[in-house]
């Protein structure tokens, strides 16, 4: 189909508002943050160019190292857990039964509630004296003394992973469910005729055919986990002792304290990590999708 340059130009004009929006409110701010990270920019002090000063300071900053370590550990703990749970839930949702409608309705609710609100609810769930978590564990006889969920660094870490899994497992499950429904049913029928057991059908048919979708879910969730902010802000406040401060929260704390240069340097590091992963996603995703 041949088209005149004028026609093509009109076509690109449809993209213009979107491109302008992204440029003005995403790309320019990213550039601004990058420039800001090269400045010494502290409230009430004269602003000056600082070169790599902020980045050099990052290298010897134990707080930054702690935030980086926590962010990586949190991602490494929560993402695999969410993928496993999400896969289990997706299998539940795909199973034909009378309860399927009710289950599908339930699955979205934790996802739809603002993380700040569910974070507040979990803060009460983990309350030392009368929270639901300690009540249940005590009632089931798992522990004889209440667990100090939010007061110890291990407890706070586990609390965050569990609360995050609660909120984001639905998202994973729904993506995987779409992948499951794309698997042709005759494969299973054939396998049943060949008397392949459930486990065999799962490992030989379901998992291999789901691998692309699993990879997409993995990368989406990894990037979300790396940039997590609101859950820590609300549930643990980054504590105790800064042990659950994510990189986003660490950067934000510097903005709050008026040190925009240093906070920007922290954000740039996080940005580069996310960018690297999204480039990886685009490489993988290219095989997965047929563009319209």
């Amino acid at each position: 189909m041949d088209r005149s340059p004028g026609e093509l130009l009109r076509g690109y004009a449809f993209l213009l508002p979107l491109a302008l929006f992204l440029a003005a409110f995403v790309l320019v701010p990213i550039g601004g943050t990058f420039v800001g990270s090269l400045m010494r920019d502290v409230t009430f002090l004269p602003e000056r160019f600082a070169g790599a000063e902020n980045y050099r300071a990052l290298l010897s900053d134990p707080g930054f190292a702690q935030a980086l370590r926590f962010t990586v550990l949190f991602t490494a703990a929560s993402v695999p857990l969410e993928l496993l749970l999400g896969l289990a839930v997706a299998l539940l949702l795909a199973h034909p039964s009378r309860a399927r409608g009710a289950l599908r309705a339930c699955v979205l609710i934790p996802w739809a509630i603002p993380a700040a609100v569910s974070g507040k609810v979990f803060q009460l769930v983990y309350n030392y004296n009368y929270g639901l978590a300690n009540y249940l564990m005590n009632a089931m006889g798992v522990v004889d003394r209440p667990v100090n969920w939010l007061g110890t660094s291990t407890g706070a870490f586990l609390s965050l992973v569990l609360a995050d899994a609660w909120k984001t497992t639905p998202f994973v499950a729904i993506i995987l469910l779409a992948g499951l429904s794309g698997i042709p049913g005759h494969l299973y029928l054939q396998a049943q005729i060949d008397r392949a057991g459930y486990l065999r059908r799962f490992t030989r048919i379901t998992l291999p055919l789901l691998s692309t979708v699993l990879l997409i879910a993995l990368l989406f969730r990894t990037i979300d986990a790396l940039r997590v902010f609101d859950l820590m802000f609300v549930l643990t406040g980054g504590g105790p002792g800064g042990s659950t401060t994510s990189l986003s929260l660490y950067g934000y704390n510097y903005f709050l304290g008026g040190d925009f240069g240093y906070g920007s340097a922290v954000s740039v590091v996080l940005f580069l990590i996310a960018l690297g992963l999204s480039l990886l996603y685009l490489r993988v995703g290219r095989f997965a999708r047929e563009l319209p």
Partner: protein
Amino acid sequence: MSEDRQIRILYVAGALGFMAFSLGPILYMALTAASRRPDFLSRASGLEFTLAHFIAVAGTPSLHFLDNLRNSIVVSGCASALCVAVAAPAAYAIARLRLPGRAFFLLCVLAVSMFPPVSLVSYLFKVMGALDWINTYRALVLPYTAWILPLSLWILTGYFAQVPVDLDRAALVDGCSGLGVLRKVVIPVAAPGIFSTALLAFILAFNEFLFALMLTTDHAARTVPVGIALFEGLHGEIPWGVVMAAATLTTVPVVLLTLVFQRRIVQGLTRGAVKG
């Protein structure tokens, strides 16, 4: 025991466990909100039902809960409408006009959606401070729109690609202009997709936290998530009943929206993430 029976038992146990895990915290939130004291689990008196916390949340002007809720609804509604208005023409062009470079454009837009918000917010804070926009609706609506545009574009492109091209052709033959085709043919056919996108955009904007935290200062523009997160009692002790009542009142509309439009949301999510 046959394998079918084993799977059935596993299924029922899994389904019940999952429902308890998903709904337990929500039920706990609602019960705490309706209980006279937050420690009702460990008290002999149990749950002493009261509506006092709900009345306090809705009826105490100094808590600003209703202001925050109004801000949230206005901001999310505007961002959602703007998102669709900006993304729909772009999605139409990508899906229907076969522009050279469209795949590259889509991938770049997707990459943009993966940037961490914290790496934008300090610059936005400074610029909006200079423009005197801090604590206004537009300080949230504009960044939210930009933030949710990539997902909207991906979802809408998928929907527009489904409308048969023959429909456009027929309309063009009948003397419709290009924009006329979009307005009279493509948009009506893709209306469910547009609705899904608007709904998802609304929920995402409603749930956003970091921009709202940094770009608002008080009840004139502060949204519900930030309002609830910053809720503190007078003496350091968190007034759990009131906080949970606010959380419940926020959750109810979100849950209703989700239950009513479950199918649409699932469709939108899977199109955005998997099928593109």
